């Protein structure tokens, strides 16, 4: 007996429907049924973090979920971060800081860091390290990744500040 079923998921704003074995993980569904191979299969038992995606905006390990369990949620993969051919500011920060070499861990790093910055826009270095502790990288030694995430947070804070200053009333006399 090998039960199968039709599974319908919302992935990156699209509906993906496929008949597959019930035992299929979200990871394998994304890669094999949805064709979204940006989500990487590493250890397949919840240790390495390479398969991290977002479920309703929160980072989760796609190897530790069955596809059949998440039909009510919105799934975001690395392909869903930016429109095809473009990069988000976080991805550009990774490139600027050489935060990847082989790239295997990068999708998981990005999905974890993206969720972190949404929840805490101004994390300190310790918070970034703690947030990324579940994502293994064997190339970079982590430091460039930490720096990329902090740099991205800083750039966003500066952009927000500039926008606030542009819209601030000019009659108040500044520092008061």
């Amino acid at each position, binding site marked *: *007996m*090998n*039960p199968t079923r039709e599974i319908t998921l919302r992935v990156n704003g699209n509906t993906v429907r496929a008949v597959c*074995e*019930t*035992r299929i*993980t979200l990871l*394998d569904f994304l890669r094999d049924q949805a064709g979204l191979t940006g989500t990487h299969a590493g*250890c*397949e*038992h*919840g240790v390495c*973090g390479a398969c*991290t995606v977002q*479920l309703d905006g*929160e*980072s*989760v*390990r796609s*190897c*530790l*979920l*069955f596809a*059949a*369990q998440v039909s009510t949620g919105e799934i975001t993969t690395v392909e869903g971060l930016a429109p095809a051919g473009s990069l988000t500011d976080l991805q550009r920060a990774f490139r600027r800081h050489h935060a990847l070499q082989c790239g295997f861990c990068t999708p998981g790093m990005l999905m*974890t860091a993206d*969720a*972190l910055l949404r929840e805490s826009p101004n994390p300190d270095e*310790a918070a970034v*390290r*703690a*947030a990324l*502790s*579940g*994502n293994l990288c064997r190339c970079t030694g982590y430091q460039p990744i930490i720096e990329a995430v902090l740099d991205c947070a800083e750039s966003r804070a500066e952009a927000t500040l500039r926008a606030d200053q542009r819209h601030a009333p000019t009659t108040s006399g500044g520092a008061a």
Partner: protein
Amino acid sequence: MKPAPLDILAPTSVAHALSLLVEHGDQARLIAGGQSLMPILAMRLAAPAILIDLNGIGALRGIHAQADGSVIIGALSRHRDLERSDLVAERLPLIAAAMPWVAHVQIRNRGTIGGSLAHADPAAELPALCLALGATLELHSPRGARHVAAADFFQGVFATERADDEMITAVHLPAASPGQRWAFIELARRHGDFALCGIALTADCSPIGQVLGARIVVFGVSDCAQRLPQLEAAIVGTTPTPTSIDQAMPALDQVEARSDHHASSEYRLELLATLARRALRQAFGFDERIAP
């Protein structure tokens, strides 16, 4: 590293889940967050034909304040629910402090309280927290409901008092005494990995700081989280000072620790002595608490 063929059933009520559990017997396993069960399935350490997925039972998720100051946490509440809860921060600061130490954020986003307690990993934080807080677990089966003290629930490595036809539905956490002292501390080689040794403690004190009662719990060193009665006895009745805490440490001499590929028994006992001292110093205000 793929689970064996299986089917997934998704009940929407506790009664339905329990009837499925009875109907399918040892062919079935309950799955909540799945953050411990999925690796077991992937490594084929278990190959149940049926998983009863509890995630659709919305009534099991939630953190509820009670008028008497106690808190009831639904079994399907996720670790992150506790981590973010103002109610937990206010009434259960020990749990709030411990949550960031539980696994990695991706695991906490999905893993549930009931699932962690039912799994009963020797190095998991939640069993220790329940012992330190004097928690009671609520279990339901077709035979009815019962409440089991955490002290009676954990029986060994992955072994609990839960019967095959039962499921954990909630955890009851009693109100803390005024001025209750607490501390949580653990050590793992990588942040978020299973602890080699950890301490969770609460101490009830008189207005002048004398310890009236204490629950000092160690986890990660033996088959399951356990209280340290000799150390508790050495602290109760005293008004702790750094010196008196140091003098209580020989009470740890009777503890036995396991050896495995992560750490030797000797190393774990060294850690235990160090972490117990630090936890007591933090609880009584002689050291800063350590952020995860």
